[in-house]
């Protein structure tokens, strides 16, 4: 029988400087973070939005830092993002932990509450999404739970700001709890043995023991780094004895005890009135329907294509680049500089062929900004709707042919926004093998927003068959390389297990915030690189090295890829950012310097090129320098190889002539 007692202790860190938000994935931690600090962090409607901690200053508590953490399904942690959160609990002297829970999934929330309370942390529980719980006819009474856990429980609706003031008050008053659920005797004895050992545990010894029995990776690492061998051997022995006693898994036993404990609590605290199925739920089911799912997916893709490719890359770019920059600003600036600047070299540096303004700023602001803007808006709406995890279900079979499961679709789709960020999102994948595979495919074959927009614009200017060929080649490469890599990498495929969040109406302000945050990032990260690239080109051109370089690259650019020799300078910029190269081709195409075949070959090659310098750094950071640089060494020649092969195949078929 699960019994428990609660001991309240004085807060060991009353003057502590950090408070952490912890909870299951997709329950509103980041929304609450925004409410409590005023600092925006990414919020989306799928599990795995936050994969790294963010810090901000609490509004109502001077000098105290709030940490937003990635969601945890439960401990022991399984994926890298969960481990990030666990390390926060292990390594920070936390003044308070705010658990954010989904009120409509009370049992699930309480499983985590138990684990956090066992750790002996000063805890409060924010039962969020009360609006959705009420809509579904759930009525929650918190008194019994508050008494049993000895913690304040506050009902909140983070998106509307209700309950926030109460959370702020509770943060100040929080005291550590020591919840003890009774586990079977053998486990209790093992815990006692560990409690008698002499070492300083990062969380309560009881919680530590339970994590240790479950072979938690963070706990494992902590033991390796912080305990002498004698203690370690003892710990291992205690665990080994337990594992022999419970061959079906110690975790199963722990979970069963907790479930038993929770069942009684929920019985006293939760009433379910009526339960009717809402329209959003019905639509949600339709989106994964074996028949209706596909047309819905195609409609969503088409809407994206129309908004970004036709409206953004066509209409908006036309207005900005041709009308505003091409006819007004740039001619005016050129005329002005001719009058005001006597030195030709300075004039060229600013408004020449490789001018800082005429190339760098014009590319970044007139061509790419409208494209990324429309993309970010469309993407933000898609993210907030909750549709993306459903694409994981639809695409699961496809991914299984390359040894992955549908979960991989999330980082890949995010890669369409920004490959660098998406590389970090591979943390949500459970196994190293999957993370490596997805990182490679992301770097190789997923075009990022800016580039995608340019590519769509170029394809629209050629023909629909060109678009089909481009999609087909990228898709084939994705499948082929994925298939080969999955054969080379050891390990088996894991089946898909994924949570489907409810479909929600996107929150307008969130889409705006998110778009602005991404634009800011784009301007900070991409624009300086554009300027740098322009300066490099200008210098190379001025010292007459560029013609020599172009000449050197001619065998590859002209001989193998069949492009005009000048395309080399665009290709060179691909080393900084491939969207820069794509923009170069875009300009060449619109000036009539590229035939249809050449345009198609150039964009296919550049799509398969390394994404950008930042992404290479991220690959090295997440995967280690060996794997990271190994991937770069593969991708560079491979992209050129595919481009040349495509050129030969298409011209032998007489395509485009």
């Amino acid at each position, binding site marked *: 029988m699960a019994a428990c007692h609660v001991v309240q202790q004085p807060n060991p860190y009353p003057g502590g400087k950090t408070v952490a938000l912890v909870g299951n994935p997709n329950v509103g931690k980041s929304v609450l973070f925004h409410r409590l600090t005023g600092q925006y962090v990414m919020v989306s409607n799928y599990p795995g939005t936050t994969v790294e901690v963010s810090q901000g200053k609490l509004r109502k508590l001077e000098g105290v830092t709030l940490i937003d953490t990635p969601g945890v*399904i*439960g401990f*022991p942690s*399984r994926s890298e993002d969960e481990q990030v959160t666990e390390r926060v609990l292990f390594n920070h002297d936390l003044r308070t932990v705010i658990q954010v829970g*989904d009120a*409509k*999934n*009370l*049992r*699930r929330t309480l*499983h985590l509450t138990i684990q956090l309370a066992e750790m002996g942390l000063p805890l409060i529980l924010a039962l969020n999404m009360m609006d*959705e*719980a009420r809509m*579904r006819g*759930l009525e929650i009474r918190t008194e019994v739970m508050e008494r049993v856990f000895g913690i304040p429980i506050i009902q909140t609706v983070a998106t509307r700001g209700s309950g926030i003031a109460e959370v702020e008050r509770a943060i100040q008053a929080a005291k550590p709890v020591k919840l003890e659920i009774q586990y079977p005797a053998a486990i209790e004895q093992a815990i006692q043995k560990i409690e008698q050992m002499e070492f300083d545990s990062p969380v309560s010894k009881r919680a530590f023991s339970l994590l240790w029995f479950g072979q938690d990776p963070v706990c494992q690492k902590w033991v390796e780094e912080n305990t002498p061998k004698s203690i370690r051997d003892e710990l291992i022995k205690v665990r080994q004895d337990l594992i022999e006693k419970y061959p*079906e*898994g110690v*975790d*199963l036993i722990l*979970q*069963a005890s907790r*479930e038993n404990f929770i*069942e009684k609590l929920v019985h006293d605290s939760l009433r379910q009135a009526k339960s009717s199925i809402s329209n959003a739920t019905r639509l*949600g*089911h339709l989106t*994964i*329907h*074996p028949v209706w*799912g596909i047309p819905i997916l195609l409609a969503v893709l088409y809407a994206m294509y129309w908004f970004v490719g036709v409206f953004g890359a066509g209409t908006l770019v036309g207005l900005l680049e041709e009308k505003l920059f091409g006819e007004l600003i740039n001619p005016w600036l050129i005329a002005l500089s001719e009058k005001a600047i006597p030195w030709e070299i300075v004039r060229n540096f600013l408004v020449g062929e490789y001018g800082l303004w005429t190339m760098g700023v014009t590319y970044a602001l007139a061509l790419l900004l409208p494209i990324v803007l429309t993309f970010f808006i469309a993407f933000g709406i898609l993210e907030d709707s909750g549709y993306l995890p459903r694409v*994981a*279900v*639809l695409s*699961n*079979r496809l991914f299984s042919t390359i040894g992955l*499961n549908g979960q991989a679709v999330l980082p890949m789709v995010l890669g369409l926004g920004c490959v660098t960020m998406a590389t970090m999102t591979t943390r949500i994948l*459970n196994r190293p093998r999957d993370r490596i595979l997805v990182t490679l495919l992301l770097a190789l074959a997923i075009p990022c927003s800016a580039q995608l927009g340019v590519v769509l614009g170029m394809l629209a200017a050629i023909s629909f068959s060109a678009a089909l060929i481009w999609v087909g080649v990228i898709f084939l490469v994705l499948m082929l390389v994925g298939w080969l890599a999955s054969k080379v990498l050891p390990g088996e495929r*894991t*089946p*898909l*297990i*994924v*949570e*489907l969040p*409810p479909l929600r109406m996107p929150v307008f302000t969130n889409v705006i915030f998110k778009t602005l945050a991404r634009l800011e990032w784009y301007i900070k990260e991409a624009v300086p690189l554009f300027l740098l690239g322009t300066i490099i080109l200008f210098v190379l051109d001025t010292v007459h090295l560029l013609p020599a370089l172009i000449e050197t690259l001619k065998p590859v650019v002209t001989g193998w890829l069949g492009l005009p020799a000048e395309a080399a300078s665009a290709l060179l910029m691909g080393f900084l950012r491939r969207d820069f190269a794509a923009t170069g081709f875009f300009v060449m195409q619109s000036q009539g310097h590229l035939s249809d075949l050449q345009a198609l070959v150039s964009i296919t090659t550049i799509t398969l090129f390394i994404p950008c310098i930042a992404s290479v750094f991220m690959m090295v950071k997440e995967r280690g320098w060996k794997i990271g640089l190994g991937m770069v060494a593969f991708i560079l020649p491979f992209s050129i190889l595919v481009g040349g092969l495509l050129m030969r195949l298409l011209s032998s078929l007489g395509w485009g002539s």
Partner: protein
Amino acid sequence: MFHHRRRQRCARGFEANNHCLALCQVAPGREVKIREMERLHPPFRGHLQAYGLLPGRCVRVITQEPITVIQVEQMELAFEKSVAEGILVEPVND
């Protein structure tokens, strides 16, 4: 050993024995109670249990195609057939 074989038979021949069937065999719309998950590969079992898929819980099957989707509390959880095969359930009468 015997134990194991008996369980497998139970999973396949659910029509003969209406008290025990594999989750992948349950028709959409029906509510069932989880009986045991011991046949599942431990990491997958741990993953599902962290979502609250525990023996004794009642869940509702939403669909079986293209993969199994069930409702646990108010959450929808999707997983492949190969996983659903390893979960034994019993019908809930209501």
